[in-house]
Structures are given as C-alpha cells and as structure tokens.
C-alpha cells in the first residue's frame, strides 16, 4: 500500500495541524508520500518533511498552483494518483473542494469525512450529520478520501523525509482565476477547527446581547457559534451556524448558552469532547447530552463566568 497525502496549504503555508492529523490516518495504510503543492512552498515542504513516518515529500512549486484552485490542483493530483493505492487529504474546505474533483477525473467514488480506517478498503464515515455511522467498503482501484481531522490525533514530529521537487505540467487554463481572499481578521479561532467553541441560542435574546457570548469566547480563546434559531432571529450571522445545515464541529470544549438543543443543532456539535450547557429551562434537551449543566439566567451566569475564569 502506498498513500499520497495531500498537504493542506494556505497561501504558501503548511496547515500543520490538519495535515498531521490526516497523516496519522494515512500512516495506518502504508508508506506515505506527502504532496506539497503551491507557489513558494519550500518552507511548507520542510515543515511537512519533519513529521514522523513520511517516506517522501513531493514538492510541486508553480505559479499555476499558487492559490490551490481546484482545476489545476485536481489535474496535478489525478496525474500522480496512478502510482498510489490511496489519495488522502484532511477534510478542509480546500481539499473538500479538490479531492471529489480528483475522484471524478479518476472515475472512482470519494470517501468523504472518514472518521476511522478499518482496513485498506473499509472506512467509517458519519451520515445524517453524525446521527448514524456507516461502514463502507470500496471496490475502486484507487481510494480517494478526505479525513475528518477531529477524529485523529496528529502524527508526531521527528522525521526527516527526503524532499523531491516534481515537474508541474498542468495546463494554465483561463477557466478559473483567483480574485481575492477576505479572511476574517477577528483574533478568534476559526469555527470548524477551534479547540473551544462558545455558542449562543435564541435565549440570548438580541443581536446586542450576543456580545456576552463573544466576551465569554474571548476569555476562553474560543470561536463563536450560534444555533439556527439565533441565526434565523438575526442575532448572529449565518456563517456562525452550528448544526445539520451549518457547520459540524467537534472541539475539546463546547459551551452552549441559551440553546435548548434542537435535533438540528445537536447534530452539529454532539461529537465535542466536553459539552457545557447554560440554560434557564432545566428540561431543555441540551442537558441530556451535556457533561456539565448549569440551570440559570444566562445574563447573570455568563458575566459571572467571565469574571471567574
């Protein structure tokens, strides 16, 4: 078994955490080559080579790959894929866009959001937003998969894999081009990869009151989330929505404030390692899955919590 692991590159930087977690999953299958593709990615390649358990780091350094657009990336990866049994990457927004396109080019199915690798052909993945876990066996000659990073511990550092530049012969088509990045400048961590998430629900009561949730999040160094009810009521923007139709998160700590716990919300956060709920209704369904609950008025409890932390 030989695995091609696609490193997650943002700009020219290696996203070490996501890549290391996908590497840990890939290493259970056999020898792993890491592909570092982008423009000016020398440092990223060195960083990738320092993970333990890497056979080689292949570096595709070319302007056409500079923004990791799906078309040239998929073309490159599909060309390399024939030499491997598995093509794997972390389930980041970037690779969730690229790897299904690779699978389409190769005429194989994609295995999305894999949470466990049972053997070379057999994988577990969540369906229905994690309300069921499916075990699937692939009959394809090349398995293309994205790895849900929350399900794996990162591979350790301590390797010194050789770095081999590869020739990039990808067509420079004008079919797609990058215009600009508008990355959130907030100091808060990104919702889907944050270690701690603080979310507010309908109980927060207004857009202005949502500042309370943000204060608590900032105190904890957490990302800010919201329930669909809070988003629908206009208290929080839609990109903060945690739930079946929003983002699925699995942080080490999830704090649900004023969230009753509708099915659609639980689906997006119930894989969190530790769940804390603050709600004035002691019968709220959120308490059925919370490790620690506090029944009380959030307008008193949250400021007090901020003070005591």
């Amino acid at each position, binding site marked *: 078994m030989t695995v091609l692991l696609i490193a997650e590159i943002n700009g020219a930087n290696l996203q070490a955490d996501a890549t290391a977690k996908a590497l840990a999953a890939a290493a259970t299958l056999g020898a792993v080559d890491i592909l570092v593709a982008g423009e000016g990615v020398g440092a990223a390649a060195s960083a990738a080579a320092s993970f333990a358990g890497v056979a080689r780091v292949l570096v595709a350094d070319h302007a056409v790959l500079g*923004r990791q657009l*799906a078309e040239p990336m*998929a073309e490159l990866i599909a060309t390399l894929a024939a030499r491997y049994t598995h093509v794997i990457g972390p389930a*980041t*927004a*970037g690779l969730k*866009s690229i*790897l*299904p*396109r690779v*699978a*389409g080019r190769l005429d194989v*199915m*994609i*295995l*999305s959001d894999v949470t466990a690798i049972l053997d070379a052909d*057999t994988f577990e993945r969540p*369906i*229905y937003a994690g*309300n*069921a876990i*499916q*075990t*699937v*066996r*692939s009959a394809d000659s090349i398995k293309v998969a994205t790895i849900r990073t929350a399900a794996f511990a990162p591979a350790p550092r301590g390797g010194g894999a050789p770095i081999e530049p590869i020739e990039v012969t990808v067509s420079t088509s004008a*079919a*797609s081009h*990058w*215009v*600009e*990045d*508008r*990355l*959130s400048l907030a100091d808060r961590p990104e919702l*889907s990869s944050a270690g*701690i998430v603080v979310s507010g629900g309908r109980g927060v009561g207004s857009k202005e009151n949502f500042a309370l949730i943000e204060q608590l999040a900032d105190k904890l160094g957490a990302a800010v989330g919201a329930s669909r009810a809070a988003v629908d009521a206009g208290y929080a*923007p*839609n*990109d903060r929505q945690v739930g*079946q*139709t*929003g983002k699925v998160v699995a942080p*080490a*700590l999830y704090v649900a404030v004023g969230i009753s716990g509708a099915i*659609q919300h639980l689906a997006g956060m*119930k894989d969190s390692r*530790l769940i*804390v709920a603050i709600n004035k209704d002691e019968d709220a369904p959120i*308490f*059925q*899955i*919370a*490790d*620690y609950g*506090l*029944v009380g008025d959030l307008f008193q409890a949250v400021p007090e*919590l901020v003070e*005591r*932390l």
Partner: protein
Amino acid sequence: MKILVPVKRVVDYNVKIRVRPDGSGVELANVKMSMNPFDEIALEEAIRLKEKGAASEVVALSIGAAPAQETLRTALAMGADRAILVETAPGEDVEPLAVAKLIAAVAREEAAGLVLCGKQAIDNDMNATGQMLAAILDWPQATFASEIRIEAGAAQVTREVDGGLQVIGVALPAVISVDLRLNEPRYASLPNIMKAKKKPLAIRPAGEFGLDIAPRLTVVKTVEPPARKGGVKAGSVAELVSKLKDEAGVL
C-alpha cells in the same frame, strides 16, 4: 442562458432519524421527506438570476425513484420553468459519482450554461456531486458559494472557505455549489403550487443514458453513534468553574 438545478429528495431536516437496529440502514418508511435544504438555496438563486434577466430558463432535475416527482413539483412551484426526473429503481443506491454522470449527460443534452447545486445533501453528507460533475464535464467549479454575480460569460463567486471568504472568477459554463448564506429560499405560494401542476415534468429512465451507475461502495453496516449520556448539573457558576478546572481539566 439555461440554468440546471439538481434537487434531491431527502429526509426532512427536522426529523430525528432512526437507525434500524439490525444495522441495515436508516429507516425511511413513513418519514417526512423534503427537498435538500442546500438544493433549495441553489434553486432560489437560479430563480433570482432569471428574475434579474441573467438567465433565460431554470430547469430542475432530480435523480431518484418515482416519489422524487413531488420534490420536482415543489421546485416548479418555487419558480422552475420545467423539470426532469431521471428515474432510478426504488431503493437503488445512486452514489454521487453516478448522479454526477447522469447530471452531466442531461447538462450536455440541455446545453446548460450553468449548473447550480447544493454543496451537499443532508442524508449522505458526501459534499461531492458538484465537484465530480465539474470534473466529468471538464468545467470550472466554484464550491460553497455565498454570493454569485454573473456578467459577460463569467461568474464571480464568493466562497466560504476555512477562515473567511475567497472570491474567484469562473468562465461559463461552470458548476457552482451553494452554501447556506447565499440566500433565503422563498415559500411557494398557493397560486404557484396550483400553476406548478401544469408545468412540464419529463420522466426519463436512468437506463436510457447507457452509463455505468453501479455503486462502487458496499455499505457493510449502519449503526448509531455511541450514545452520549447527560452529566451532572452544577449548582452555581463557581461550582461549574471548579468542575471544569479540577474534574474535567479543560481550563
């Protein structure tokens, strides 16, 4: 420009699904079904583009068994001009790769200028059909769209990426998959629901396309995730903080 919008009939997002105890799958009998929410957003966008004059026709397409006609009628009631059902056998599992091949065949036949689809279906959560379709058609793709502007044979698409937004331009024809923030889908009005009954809905057997749509994945089993049990309640904020620090060690 003709816009093709694939829509999938899925278990309604408000339904708490039940996993069959024998591991054979998720119970679908007597469960409320609806249009996949992301597909609804794609359809709404297509209708708005037509209303703005950027598109000439909106064609809704579903790949599925006969009951998917209901979903297509909903699409027609929202404002699609006509609908196509590529009919598969009841209970047949049609994977994203196969769905993408069938959509590609229809997109070519229809000479569609744009395929607007949901970023994922909320049943199998694959998030793959749009990207695979773009690969098969060899069209550019823009996934996870939260804003779409069409001008001069191209689309400028704002995408939801990790850490914020990315704006890219794609030449048409293209595949655009949509995310939640793009719009809020309209409700079909009663007169439009009545009108939809008279709009054309063509039914084509999937076999007619002569494509390999056999599944590549075998589902070994489907189980419930490990149950989470409720924990303890803290009597005060102080107690909560001490539990988090001392018992759970997360702070």
